[in-house]
């Protein structure tokens, strides 16, 4: 798994986002065990305490759960992770549209750019 950490933003939030996205995309399946805190910390090159905090936050959101002594698992329902992903997609799209509007483009022009972008 490739980790890209942006040092300008809180790291815990980035780890939450990444794990949640992997679950929403089905890379991690419902009920499956995910990489441990230490493995994730080593892979991402970040502090284990930060990863621990992220996992606890994801648990609070109902996206993963912990089993004492055996690690962290994807919840049986992955719809929360999917909802998180959906709202991120909407957020990013809105951001993009705002930026394009600020550059003086109307909706039709934006659509045209996206279509031409395809190949």
């Amino acid at each position: 798994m490739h980790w890209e950490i942006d040092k300008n933003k809180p790291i815990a939030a980035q780890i939450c986002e990444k794990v949640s996205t992997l679950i929403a995309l089905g890379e991690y399946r419902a009920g499956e065990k995910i990489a441990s805190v230490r493995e994730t910390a080593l892979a991402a090159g970040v502090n284990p305490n930060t990863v621990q905090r992220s996992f606890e936050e994801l648990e609070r959101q109902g996206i993963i759960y912990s089993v004492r002594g055996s690690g962290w698992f994807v919840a049986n329902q992955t719809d929360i992770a999917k909802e998180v992903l959906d709202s991120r997609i909407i957020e990013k799209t809105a951001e993009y549209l705002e930026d394009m509007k600020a550059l003086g483009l109307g909706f039709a022009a934006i659509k045209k750019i996206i279509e031409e972008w395809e190949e």
Partner: protein
Amino acid sequence: MSELIRLESLYKSYGKKPALFNVNLSLESGKIVGLLGPNGSGKTTLIKILNGLLTASSGTVLFEGEPIGVNSKSKIAYLPDNIYLNTWMTVRQIVSFFADFYADFRTELAYEMLYKLDISPDQKLKTLSKGNKEKVCLILTMSINAKLYVLDEPIAGVDPAARDYVISTIINNYNPDASVLISTHLIADIEQVLDEVIFIKNGSIVLHKSVDEVREENGVSVDEHFREVFKW
């Protein structure tokens, strides 16, 4: 999580020159803490006081609630910013020297880390490159079974690839009962493994916060924030 270190109104001066000015600090166990400051800001003085190598001019220094002494010295592993080992010794000899000196030195762990870095135990220290000597020193320090690891500039002399190794060594050896205090000015290389940062300027602590708080409040990396705080 318990308090490992407590400093209260700590002052230190070298003759008339003040080096530390009213330092108050509390460090908990289970944290990786960056001690960041420009050259001559008092980082090494502070570290040497924690190790009992210097005594404060006034103020309180407590380790697990007790003054610095025999107990604290066996529980604090210190990596100085210069190489202090006898260079005529082989790596193997130094490992057994450390095993002799520290009651619960983790010899196997030391050899494991040496092997991973491709450093032969039968090499004499003086035949190693500067970077490899530094790695040996770090491995020895991290193999001590300590409560507090104090690393003074652990990454200054090693190449960027080895820096990643140094960082993963620190993460790998992380244990919730112990803390790691890392002094450096190479912040960008190390900030993602930190829990907390301490900024020290002209002998005073100007900031002590969790790194994610710094990023959240300022919207920039710790490195970037450091450049703002220490702008001149």
